[in-house]
């Protein structure tokens, strides 16, 4: 099943798109795995996703740690630490 990936802030800018639909291989189990796999998609992806420790993620709109499992997820967002308010 294809997975919707959303990017925000500088992650979005570096990748050059806000959203894409992907079908990762079955060995992509966690958010961290997904980030590593997405990094291979383009030079922009590689640059945006080079330092996972600077990234945060949400699985189906819930904030999660990067070791969270993504099995069954439909929408995954990847972004820098939030700076609202």
């Amino acid at each position, binding site marked *: 099943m294809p997975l919707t990936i959303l990017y925000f*802030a500088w992650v979005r800018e570096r990748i050059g798109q806000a959203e894409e639909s992907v079908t990762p291989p079955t060995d992509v189990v966690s958010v961290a795995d997904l980030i590593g796999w997405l990094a291979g998609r383009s030079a922009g992806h590689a640059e945006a996703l080079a330092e996972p420790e600077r990234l945060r993620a949400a699985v189906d709109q819930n904030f999660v740690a990067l070791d969270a499992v993504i099995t069954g997820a439909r929408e995954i967002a990847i972004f*820098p630490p939030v*700076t*609202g308010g």
Partner: protein
Amino acid sequence: MIRILVSSDPIDLAGEMARMEGDDVGAVASFCGLVRADDGVDRLELEHYPGATEAALDRIARAASERWSLQAATIIHRVGPMHPGERIVLVLAAAPHRHDALDACAYLIDRLKTDAPFWKRETRGGEARWVEARHGDAVAAARWTDPTP
């Protein structure tokens, strides 16, 4: 009563305040955050995660309502481009007693800073940069560690 609004329209402070008042409300505390020009910022842009943002703000307001005796909690956040002096965020808490309103108000803004998906981009003299998260915000949010998960 919880009210959440994420919008690119200017924040109507007087109107939002008036919504909080009622015959049984004894105290309304508010916090308003504004775009500051003092470090040379001439434009600020707020990006958010539609849907997830509103859900996060609703969770924060509900947590405040469970923790303190509130009659109303409101969180309004502006998104899109704005300029110095303009309001970015407004949180309001209404309660029969003042410390419930004051503490809940501080909680709402501290939690919003770390738990809601917004990102700020500042422009100074044509040069844009994404604002870095502040460690102090995590510290401020941590002092409210919820009694329940």
